[in-house]
C-alpha cells in the first residue's frame, strides 16, 4: 500500500496466547519464503488471545497461500485480510533528530504541522513521538531526513477493520475455499 507497487498487504491474525506462537508464525514465513514487512503483537479484548498485525510483502507467492498456511497453525484462531480502505491502520514512531541552532525551530515547526509530540530534548537533538497512518509517518520522516535522523524506532502497523463488527465475526475470505 505505502510503497505504491501494490505488493504490501495487511492482515490481522488472532492467535492463542501460547508459548512459541510468535516463533511458529515467523518460522512459517521464512520456511515458505514470504517476506514480513512489519509485525506487531499485543493483547486483545479477550484474555488468552493475542492479535498480530502483519504487513506482508507478497512478491512471487500469492497472498492466499500465506493465509492458508497460517490458518493451518493450531494456535491461529482467525485471519483477516484488510482490503485497501477497509481498515483503520496506524503506527507509532519515535524519532531522534538533530536540531541545534536554526534547525531547532524548523523541526519544532514541522512537529506542530504534523501534530506530533516532542518527548525528549537535548542541546543538540529533539525526540518526536508520532502516530498516524503509515503515509503520514513516511511524509514526516522524509522531511526530518534533511536535519539528520540519529535514531528511529517504529512499532509496525496495527489495524482494525472499519464498521461495527469484530474480527471474530468476520469470515476470512481466502482461507476457506
Amino acid at each position: 500500500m505505502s510503497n505504491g507497487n501494490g505488493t504490501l498487504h495487511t492482515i490481522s491474525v488472532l492467535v492463542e496466547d501460547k508459548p512459541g506462537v510468535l516463533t511458529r508464525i515467523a518460522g512459517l514465513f521464512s520456511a515458505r519464503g514470504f517476506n514480513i514487512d512489519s509485525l506487531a503483537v499485543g493483547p486483545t479484548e479477550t484474555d488468552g488471545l493475542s492479535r498480530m498485525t502483519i504487513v506482508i510483502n507478497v512478491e512471487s507467492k500469492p497472498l492466499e497461500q500465506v493465509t492458508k498456511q497460517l490458518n493451518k497453525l493450531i494456535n491461529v484462531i482467525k485471519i483477516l485480510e484488510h482490503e485497501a480502505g477497509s481498515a483503520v491502520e496506524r503506527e507509532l514512531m519515535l524519532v531522534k533528530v538533530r536540531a541545534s541552532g536554526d534547525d531547532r525551530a524548523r523541526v519544532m515547526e514541522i512537529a506542530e504541522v504534523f501534530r506530533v509530540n516532542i518527548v525528549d530534548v537535548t542541546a543538540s537533538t529533539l525526540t518526536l513521538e508520532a502516530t498516524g497512518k503509515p503515509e503520514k509517518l513516511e511524509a514526516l520522516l522524509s522531511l526530518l531526513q534533511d536535519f539528520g535522523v540519529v535514531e528511529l524506532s517504529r512499532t509496525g502497523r496495527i489495524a482494525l477493520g472499519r464498521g461495527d463488527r469484530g474480527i471474530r465475526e468476520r469470515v476470512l475470505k481466502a482461507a476457506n475455499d
Partner: protein
Amino acid sequence: MKVTGALAVLKALEQEGVEVIFGIPGGASMPLYDPLVDASPIRHILCRHEQGAGHAAEGYAWATGKVGVCMATSGPGGTNLVTPIADAKMDSVPIVAITGQVPTPVVGNDAFQEADITGITMPITKHNFLVKDPALIAETVREAFHIASTGRPGPVLIDLPKDVLLAETTWSWPDRVNLPGYKPTTKGNQRQVGEAVKLILAAKQPVLYVGGGVIKANATQELATLATTGRLPVVTTLMARGAFPDSHELCLGMPGMHGNYTAVTSLQKADLLIALGTRFDDRVTGKLAAFAPNAKIIHVDIDPAEIGKNRAVDVPIVGDCKDVITKMAAELEARQSEHGVPDRSAWLNQLEDWQRRFPYRYEQKPDGPIKPQYCVERLRSFADDDTIVVAGVGQHQMYASQFWRFEHPRHWINSGGLGTMGFAVPAAMGAKVGQPGKRVVAIDGDGCFQMTAQELATSNTEKIPFVTAILNNGYLGMVRQWQELFFDERYSGVYLNPDVPDYVKLAEAYGAVGLRAESPEEVDAVIEKAYSVEDRSVVIDFRVDPKEMVFPMVPAGASNDDIILGPESATPTTDPAEAPIV
C-alpha cells in the same frame, strides 16, 4: 487419584488406545520407563536407534491407520527423531513423538543433553507441545492424538521435562479437546460436488488422479464405486499404490517421474483430472507449466492449502475424501441413471492400446546378471495379495512400486515426500507389529539398508520377523543413474562395494537368517526359503546388475511429454549446466 506425571502420560496413552511404543530411554525420560515395569499394559519395543523407533512408529501407522508412538530422551534422543518426524510430516503419517526434556529449572541453561526440541521440530511437526505443568499432561496427550489423527494427519511432538514427569498430579481424563483454532473441514460442499459431476459427465478423456489421501481417509471402497460407476480410469501415485487394485481393468498404475507410459500420458492427454487427496507434487507433474495442458481440474483435499498451490483449479472441494467421493459417486450415479454413462470408448481404447504397447519392461537373460526388477517380480509371485511391502528411497523403491502388483490399501509403505534412506527396515518392523498376521517384505537398497540395519537386532530380540530383500548393486544406484545420464558418466561418491559388509554374515550376526542369490536360477529357491522362515527375520542379498537403470523416466524439470521409455532413447546431457536439478 494421585499419580506421577510419568504415569499420567502412560495412562493417557492407554486412554488413546496405544498398545505399543517404539523407543529408547535416557536420563530425562527415565521416569516414563518406571511405570512400564508393572503399572502400564503398553508394550515398549526397545529400538537400537531413535531414527529406527520413529520409522517403526510410521510403519505401524501406515499399516494400521492408527497413531504410531515413538519415545526418546532429551537432546540427542530427540534430535535423532528429527528425520522420521520430517518424513511423517511430508507423507502425512499420524505419529506422536514423546521426548524427555531436562528439568524446567535448567531449561535454557545448556544443561547436559539439552536441546530445544520443540524449537527444532516446529517446522516439521503438525504441532508440538512443551508441557510445564503435570496437571496439563492428560489434555495435552489427548490434543496431540486428536491433531495427529484428524484433518490432514501428521506428526505431533510432546516434550516433557523430567521434573514434570516426577511431580505428583491428580489424574483426570478430559472429556473433550479444546482447540479453538483447529477445526478441519471434513464435509464436502454439495454444490461443488454437483459442479464436479457436471464436469465429469462432460469429459471425454477423464482420469482419476488418486493420491495417498484416499488411503488415509479409508476411502478406497468409495473410490472403487466412483471409478466403476463412471467408468473412469485411475492412476495411483507413489503414495496411493494399492488404493485401487492393480488388477482392475480401469487401473493405469503409477504416474510420475518413473511411472509407466500410460499413466503419465493419460494425465498429459486428459481433458479432466479428478484429483483426490493428492498434491500435484513435482515428481508427478514434471515441468508444471507443461503438465496436463488440456485438463480441467477438480481438486478434492482436506487441506485447503494444497488446493491451488501448484495448479489452478476449476472445481475446488475441501473435505475428507471419504465424504466427498461418496457424495460424488452418488450424484454421478443419479445423473447417469437419467442419461446413461457417457460413451468414452475411444479414450478407454486408446489407454488400453498404450498399456499393450508400452508396459514396464526389462530383460532377464538366463545367464546374465540378476535384474532387480526380476527379484521384485519373483518376490511378488511367491507372495499372497495380503503381503505388506516396504521400501526406502531410490531405485529399489521405484522397482518395487512398478513391479509389485498391489490389490489392497495399506500394503505398500515407503518414504515418498522426504525420500528418506534407511526407512524400510524399521518401518517394516513397525508394520509387522501392527499387522502381526501378515507377511512383511522390505525391499531395500544396499545403501539404504546400511543406514538402519541395526533394527534387525530389535526385530530378532523382540520376535518381530520380516523379510528384507536387498537389491544389492554395490552403488547408491539412483545417484549413479543420474551421473550416468546427466553428468557424462562421471561417477562420484556412489560406489559402496557389494561385498562389504557381507550381508549374509551381518544378518546372522543379528540373529537373522542370511541368504544370497548371485545368478537368476538361484532367485526362486532363495525366496521360497526366505518365505518359509516364520520365527525370525530374513535378509536376502540379491546381487543385481549394477548397470540397470529405472525406466521410464521423466528427467527432473522436463515435461511429462518428454518421457524416456528405456536406455536406448536416453540422451545423456553432457553439459553440467544443462543437468536438471533434483
